């Protein structure tokens, strides 16, 4: 059966609370077909750039394009792996160091599809979503660069 999925909003203003992640896991207790969950969390790291520590990252996006792209990625991943669920949350605005800015969550009957889908989602989100991070120091900023 083909399911038509709606475009979902993946963006959250500010950091993604750890309690939100716990609640999201809890909600899956009612799905008794799930045998494994895979989760990736991106956390803002206090990199030092010329002796100055990063204090936060400020994220911006081209929201309409990012949501359309995420929808296409989601469809690809559902077509490729036998998943029961797939959730993505990405921060916008300022996220202080130590806080969560990306939450990718996949579930399947057996562990391998959830693990592989989660990894592929993280790579595609970083490479394909029009989102930009600005690393904020106490007295300035620099634009974040993603390594492949």
């Amino acid at each position, binding site marked *: 059966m083909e399911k038509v999925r709606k475009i979902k909003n993946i963006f959250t203003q500010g950091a993604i609370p750890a309690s939100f992640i716990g609640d999201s896991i809890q909600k899956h207790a009612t799905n008794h077909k799930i045998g494994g969950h895979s989760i990736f969390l991106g956390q803002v790291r206090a990199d030092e750039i010329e002796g100055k520590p990063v204090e936060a990252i400020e*994220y911006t996006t081209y929201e309409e394009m990012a949501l359309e792209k995420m929808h296409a990625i989601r469809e690809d991943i559902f077509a490729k792996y036998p998943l029961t669920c797939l959730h993505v949350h990405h921060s916008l605005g300022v996220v202080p160091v130590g806080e969560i800015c990306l939450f990718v969550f996949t579930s399947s009957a057996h562990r391998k599809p959830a693990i592989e889908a989660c990894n592929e989602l993280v790579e595609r989100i970083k490479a394909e979503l*029009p989102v*930009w991070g600005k690393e904020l120091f106490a007295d300035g900023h620099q634009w974040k660069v993603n390594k492949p």
Partner: protein
Amino acid sequence: MKVKFFGQLAELAGVASLDVSDVDSVVALKKWLGEKYPSMSAIGYMVAVNKKMAEGDISLSAEDHIALMPPFSGG
């Protein structure tokens, strides 16, 4: 046409968007931008036309929505 600037490009341009009327292709737009904002070409940005990535040259009309995007750095 409406031209939006994202990330570092918005910082360089000092605006989030511009109305541009005197270009008719992606190549012409890039040339116009290079003259107006000389520092922009060093960044190696991508161009999206109506939310699709433009590869090579394509013609543009007044109704198109253009986005100028530096390399992505989400996550």
